[in-house]
């Protein structure tokens, strides 16, 4: 069975500081990996995705993520956080045979201090 673990429930960083959100996954085949952001009361917005190829993927809003197969990880990073980045972040895993179905982690809430 596929699963996603986001070890950090809540992270607080100062504006301008760097950010790394952790994600570990379990999947029996080649994973399709995603990071989404959700603002309060809103739906999910895709930040970036990994299907294959270069293990460092760039996304929107200055985010990037690195796929490490040996560690079953797909950590999200941003070099300099802005106050508007405060939100909830979800990592998800899917697969080609599970079209339209993804398994999500329980999310990490990001607070940005001025």
């Amino acid at each position, binding site marked *: 069975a596929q699963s996603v673990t986001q070890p950090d429930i809540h992270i607080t960083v100062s504006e301008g500081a760097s950010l790394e959100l952790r994600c570990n996954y379990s999947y029996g085949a080649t994973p399709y990996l995603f990071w989404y952001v959700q603002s309060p009361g*809103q*739906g999910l917005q895709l930040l970036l*995705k990994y*299907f294959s190829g270069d293990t460092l993927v760039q996304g929107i809003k200055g985010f990037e993520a690195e796929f490490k197969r040996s560690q079953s990880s797909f950590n999200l990073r941003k070099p300099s956080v802005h106050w508007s980045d405060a939100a909830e972040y*979800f990592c998800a895993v899917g697969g080609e045979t599970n*079209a*339209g*179905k993804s398994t*999500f982690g329980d*999310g990490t809430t990001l607070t940005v201090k001025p």
Partner: protein
Amino acid sequence: DAGVTQSPTHLIKTRGQHVTLRCSPISGHKSVSWYQQVLGQGPQFIFQYYEKEERGRGNFPDRFSARQFPNYSSELNVNALLLGDSALYLCASALPPVANEQFFGPGTRLTVL
């Protein structure tokens, strides 16, 4: 182009009642998935429909059902509502064959009293 739309935005029901939630996918998208997001948790997969056929079902009781119409819009039905059904229900559409790139709607907030 319009994104994924869902209706209603908010809904309050009492235990034992029935509810129908609606979703219109992005134009041209033929795959629709439903997710339940309980407060403090990540979305949990309920159903996926593609070309009007059920293509996947999550670990939810038979009180949950769905269908997809010829125009690819979809309904999620929940019977005999329980307090634990209170959640944000998200719909996502996708354009196969890369069906894993999903686009989410804003969700329907269901409160069961």
